């Protein structure tokens, strides 16, 4: 799952570094992801994993790291 998350972030996150070099718990916003890019990441994640995030999950903190994104995906039924 984390490989696919990295792929989505690489395509849509517009980070200033390569997501491959980021630790799972690294802060994506500190790595240059803007609020606008984070929305594109969310949309691409819903598409890639064929899920819908709940409104309660759609907040900055849920998308701040690969770990937190993986936890959110698990919560909506994606299996590791």
């Amino acid at each position, binding site marked *: 799952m984390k490989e696919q998350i990295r792929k989505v972030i690489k395509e849509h996150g517009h980070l200033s570094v390569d997501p491959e070099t980021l630790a799972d718990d690294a802060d994506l916003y500190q*790595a240059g992801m803007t*609020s606008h890019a984070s*929305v594109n990441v969310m*949309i691409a994640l819903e598409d890639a994993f064929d899920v819908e*995030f709940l*409104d309660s999950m759609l*907040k*900055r903190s849920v998308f701040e790291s690969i770990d937190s994104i993986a936890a959110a995906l698990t919560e909506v039924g994606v299996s590791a």
Partner: protein
Amino acid sequence: MSVATDADTALLDGVRRIADEVAAVHADEVDKEARFPAETIEALRAEGALSALVPQGLGGLEASLEAVARSCFELGRRCGAAGMVFAMHQIQVACMVDHRGEGAAWFDDFLRELVTKQRLVASITSEVGTGGDMGSSIAAVTENDAGEASFEKQAPTVSYGPYADAFLTTLRRSPDAEPGDQVAVLTRREQMEMVRQGTWDPLGMRGTCSPGFVAKATFAVDQVLPVPFSTVSAETMTPVSHILWSQVWLGIATDAFDRARAFTKAAAKRKPGEPPSGAVRLSELMAELSLLRAEVGLALREYCDLRRGDRARLSEMATILRFNNLKIAASEQAPKVCQQALGVCGIVGYKNDTPFSVGRHLRDAMSARLMVANERIHGTDASLILIAKDV
């Protein structure tokens, strides 16, 4: 809505009196001369109203946000500029109260001082070169070896910058931080060098005295709010700004309506038995005002409910959209009401020196859509709508 406490009643009684006896008296002169509403702010100081939101444990009034919102309405009704200065100050105080963290000695001391000395706090959030995006900064907090920090920021506007005692400034966390990795820093004027840039001669809200500045400061690292600015902004600064600004705009629009009604009444008295020609237009105006009042009132209740209840929801995109919608709706509806009031009053409303003048109201209300440009907010919302579910 919570039951009004003694603190709320005391605040509102004082602010209403100041609005009627001080702000109303000087409003036209403040507007004409584009000067700071000094008498009104002094009266609010004497009333202790600048520390309305400070917790009682630090000596403040600890009034509710509802009472502060109502105060913004009352002041806006009599002098839009004074109402806006008061609103903006309360926004900065709310950010400190909400986000200073447990046992933050520096901020607790500052808030105590704010109570005893009635310090006026402004913000330095806009920055030359960011294209109006409050969520990104160029200037950064730079720490030196002595454990102190400094910044230099070029701000295109600093509302009541020449008159504030302290400033809440957004900055990048460090010189190597990304533009969106921001913090907020509170500095006293004594710690700063403020170099004014350019003039202040705008269309409306002239008394807010908001020229540009180059701001430099040297400060202790514990003057940085301990949470990321993105949290301060999402939970407090943005929604509270939209709520308190919209109360000021509602106040301005309400006074424009009152003047249109007074004009129509005077016309009716001159020709008893005949319905005055403007009466139907006045009724249409009332309907537009009631739309504005409904949205502004509902948004206040929803935000206060969220703060008291499920605070985690304040950061959700659906919530961000909700309070962005308030800003867009109120900032477009308020000038519409003022313009329709002008239509009712005609030339007597267009002239600046009659009891039915609404030119100041219209000009003040037209600033609303520029305070964080509606186009920018629409841009943000356009992307959030695509992902948020229940909006």
